[in-house]
């Protein structure tokens, strides 16, 4: 009597699998095995047969749905994807894939990867270079070590209470200064004091101090402008009716009025000259004399 198999109780559909490479030309011979194992008489019970049939039929289907050449080609495509993305290597399809052949792509995948032109180190080195190490004592705590994004954010964000107090004192001092050169010197001193010390909020405080310096300088300019204005309008509050222009307009109006009075006294203020004015009187005298 033929041996009857039992379906393995430990089988799980998503369990471990073993990969077996089957030469395509040998696939027809494997059918002898599959058909044998899919036959009901090989199994102890009908349920054993049913379960085993599903597994062997799926393996049989898998045997016809994969190809090592295709798998290798996919791996090569993955290499080209990474090579293009990381190294910028440009690949060209010399001959597209056909049902019988794989695509021909150049350049060939090298046995050992190289670095693209102008690049002397790998991605890790390039990332380290991008961070860079600044001289010891560089402001905002980024000197003498690899500067991280966290360092930069720390330098940007709100400062510690002690740093804020020092910035306020500097700003207050700036508002009391009179000369632009002195303002710049104070800001420079602030930066020098912060070298290697000011980390948290350093950039923010520097910006605030620089802005305060600009405000202080603008205040000095405003003072000078007021002095100029005072010399023009007597130092009174700015008012359109009392400024220089207004006074000139007023003087012009007075002059025009006086000229009108003079002309009226000469010709009566109208053309032709009415009787009774100077010219008509002179004309009457002339008539009598003649």
């Amino acid at each position, binding site marked *: 009597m033929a041996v009857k198999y039992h379906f393995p109780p430990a089988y799980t559909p998503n369990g471990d699998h073993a990969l077996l490479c089957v030469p395509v030309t040998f*696939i027809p011979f494997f*059918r002898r095995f599959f058909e044998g194992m899919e036959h009901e008489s090989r199994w102890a019970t*009908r349920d054993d047969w049913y379960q085993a049939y*599903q597994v062997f039929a799926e393996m049989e289907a898998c045997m016809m749905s994969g190809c090592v050449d295709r798998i290798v080609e996919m791996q090569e495509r993955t290499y080209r994807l990474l090579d293009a993305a990381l190294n910028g290597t440009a690949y060209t399809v010399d001959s597209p894939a056909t*049902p*019988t052949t794989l695509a021909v792509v150049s350049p060939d995948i090298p046995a050992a990867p190289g670095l693209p032109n102008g690049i002397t180190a790998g991605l890790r080195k390039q990332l380290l270079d991008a961070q860079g190490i600044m001289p010891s004592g560089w402001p905002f705590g980024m000197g003498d070590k690899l500067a991280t994004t966290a360092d930069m954010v720390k330098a940007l964000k709100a400062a510690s209470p002690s740093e804020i107090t020092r910035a306020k004192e500097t700003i207050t001092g700036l508002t009391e200064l009179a000369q632009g050169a002195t303002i710049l010197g104070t800001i420079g001193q602030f930066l020098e004091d912060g070298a290697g010390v000011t980390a948290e909020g350093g950039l923010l405080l520097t910006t605030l101090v620089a802005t305060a310096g600009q405000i202080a300088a603008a205040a000095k300019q405003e003072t000078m402008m007021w002095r100029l204005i005072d010399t023009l309008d007597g130092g009174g509050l700015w008012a359109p009716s009392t400024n220089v222009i207004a006074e000139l307009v007023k003087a012009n109006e007075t002059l025009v009025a006086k000229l009108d009075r003079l002309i009226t006294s000469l010709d009566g203020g109208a053309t032709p000259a009415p009787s009774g004015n100077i010219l008509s009187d002179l004309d009457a005298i002339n008539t009598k004399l003649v």
Partner: protein
Amino acid sequence: MAWKPDPIVNVILCFRDDDGAESEHRLKLPLSALPAAEAFVLDYASLIAAVSDCALYRMRTTLVCKDDGSQVAAVGSNAKRQSVLLFETESPGQIYVIAVPGLIVSRLMQIGPYAQVQLDPSDSAISALVTLLVNGSAGARPVAPWNATDGGDSAFDWAGVPLLRLQTAYWGYEPPEWQ
């Protein structure tokens, strides 16, 4: 090619003794009695126990159709060379295999990674065969011999699952033990 049904239907009754040895007993019925064959066999089986101390464990009815002799095998044909058709069934995940003897090599793919091994699904003869197996004909539609959910150990519950579509098809050799 002309097909004729055999006018005689075979009713095969399978017996087994206490040692596991098996034997078959055949009855003949006229083709006209085919619709009533099942009822007759049940009546017959109920009387067997009175004349046989073996277990009657299976009965099957065989309808035979025969070619009229006009079919001639092609030169170089090979009955052990199969067209293996793997079908998805209407039950997701279930596959059912139908193997047709005497694969014609020209039906194989001539190009591609499975050239000379995979059957060409676009071949008109292959697609016509697949269509018949999936859709059936004259009200008869082939099934995978189980039910849609799982096996169970009672064959009486297995009504069959119709085939849904061809998954793949290839050239396979029939194993010698089934020849």
